């Protein structure tokens, strides 16, 4: 009590800094430094495996005016929107079922089962879909062997639909969990109140359950949308190289053509677009995110 307040605080601050510094250094090295590198690279001159200290906007001009880049960015957005829509539409009923119709004692078992697909590698899960949807895959050979079709179906593989199917499966648990948590937090007497005040079960869902679970839906949308747009394994394996997304372009520029500057400009552009869409989405739904829960 008698010691001076200043030195006490200093010591506290020092020990606090000492405690956060490992995390801080880790964060700086692995997040801030690479990001800064990409930002700097994107305005330098690249090509031939090197980046020279020559300031230019050319990389951005190429990315924002090139037809190829625009087409691929649009495909990435289409896939990401599609995956997000499909994932959330599938995840919501599952989360609803677990929250409202599974006995409380069995809920954790259900959540555990939902995460089982995560026990295998992402790569293997993607590859399995290739086995299922492929030209000589499970569906085609199965349908052919029972004589429903004479030759393999072309429209189930190597297209945007197949990409969406695969990615939606991969991200489903990420969407189920936040929606489940939001649904769990809803006071059940609110639903009885909705019906007591004259609304059917469906109307009560629309007016009470859905708005109150929106924070979970918003979280699910962001969790699925943001990583999906940057996915490059699935387009490669499922699309068979014919359906590159924006991350595949980055991979080509960075590792194959060795133009790191252009690759960085693509990365920064994609990041800006994703950030703008995410912010717009959150702002659109901000009325659901107000107030204490």
């Amino acid at each position, binding site marked *: 009590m008698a010691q001076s307040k200043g030195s006490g605080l200093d010591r506290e601050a020092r020990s606090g800094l000492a405690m956060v510094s490992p995390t801080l250094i880790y964060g700086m090295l692995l997040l801030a430094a690479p990001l800064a590198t990409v930002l700097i690279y994107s305005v330098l001159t690249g090509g031939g495996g090197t980046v020279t200290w020559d300031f230019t906007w050319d990389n951005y001009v190429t990315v924002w005016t090139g037809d190829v880049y625009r087409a691929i960015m649009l495909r990435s957005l289409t896939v990401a929107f599609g995956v997000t829509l499909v994932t959330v539409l599938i995840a919501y009923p599952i989360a609803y079922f677990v929250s409202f119709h599974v006995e409380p004692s069995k809920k954790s078992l259900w959540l555990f089962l939902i995460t089982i697909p995560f026990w295998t590698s992402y790569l293997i899960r993607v590859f399995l879909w290739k086995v299922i949807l492929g030209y000589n895959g499970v569906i085609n050979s199965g349908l052919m062997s029972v004589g429903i079709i004479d030759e393999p179906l072309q429209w189930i593989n190597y297209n945007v639909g197949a990409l969406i199917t695969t990615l939606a499966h991969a991200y489903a648990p990420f969407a189920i969990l936040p929606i489940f948590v939001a649904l769990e937090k809803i006071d059940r007497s*609110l639903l009885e109140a909705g019906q007591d*005040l004259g609304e059917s079960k469906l109307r009560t869902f629309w007016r009470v359950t859905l708005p109150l679970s929106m924070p979970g839906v918003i979280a699910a949308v962001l969790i699925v949308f943001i990583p999906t747009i940057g996915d490059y394994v699935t387009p490669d394996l499922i699309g068979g190289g014919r359906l590159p997304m924006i991350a595949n372009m980055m991979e080509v520029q960075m590792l194959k053509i060795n133009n790191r500057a252009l690759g960085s400009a693509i990365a920064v552009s994609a990041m800006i677009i994703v950030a703008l869409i995410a912010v717009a989405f959150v702002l659109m739904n901000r009325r659901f995110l107000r107030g*204490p829960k």
Partner: protein
Amino acid sequence: MTDKPTMIEFRDVHKYYGDYHALRGISATIRAGEFFSLLGPSGCGKTTLLRTIAGFEGISSGAVLIDSKDMADVPANKRPTNMVFQSYAIFPHMSVAENVGFGLRRDPRSKADKAKAVEEALEMVGLKGYGTRAAHALSGGQRQRVALARALILKPKVLLLDEPLSALDKKMREHMQVELIKLQRQVGITFVLVTHDQEEALVMSDRIAVMFEGEIAQLADPETLYRRPATRKVADFIGTMNFIPCTVLSESDSGCEVEAKGLGRVHLDPGQCPPLRGGADPVVGLRPETLTLVYPGQTTTERTTPGVIDEVIYFGDMTYYDVYIGGTDIEVRLSMRNVPGRPILEVGAKVDVAWSPTALVLFR
């Protein structure tokens, strides 16, 4: 009171949860416009019974009728009832006005008329001008008022209240008790209240059904319930009651003769000998306020029995005395109002206890 039409009728209602028999043959009627309470300890089935009226709980057998219509196939959202939930169930994503107007969606009135109705409902519960507030920013008492306004705006035939005051502090609770009585008189709607607080039930109700273990033990007006409880259990649950062992000497149409320990031989009128028999040893019950101490120098026309004070409990306006009576080990509690000039007696003092045979009730 008795000529009022029936609003709710239970016909031999049973409810099972698996093997658990929650409601065991409830038959009762609730009259239009009355303030009716379901009173009992937790787990007695009172909330379940209320929820069968609202339609949140199906029944295993029997029938629930509201306004002479069988509710068997009527879902909760089509019943002429509205409920004030124990947790109030205020929609947290809506403003106060949106909460109160929730049930008006299908109302054919214009938007302006509906807004006016909402404002009137808020005014009725004392929340005028609160419409634009966020629901989650309200205090407990305000939430309850919003829940009341939200239910009453729909002009239900029956308002159901599930322990609406249990979450409030004592002062607020007593205040809301009086407000609810006034509100009920003002709107004239049948109120059905669930409570475990016997005082609350006595204060507010026209009639009370006391429930134990899924059955109605007694259905009566508060005064009858207090003065002439039908069973020892009811007597014990409502207020304080002294139980004195006795033997029944004779019984006839004109009442019964009992020999009560420490009191002597007493004649009881038929009304004091409820016909229900629990199979236990007979006792007579006496409320503390029906017993009085006879101070030295005073006289009384009532019957008296000598006693020795064992304990003195001072409450400010009242003093409770525990007294051994008639030279026995039977102890009774009696309460005396502390009026000026009346001394507080001390432990060990020898006193006479005055009592009236008409205050006794026999339980067996």
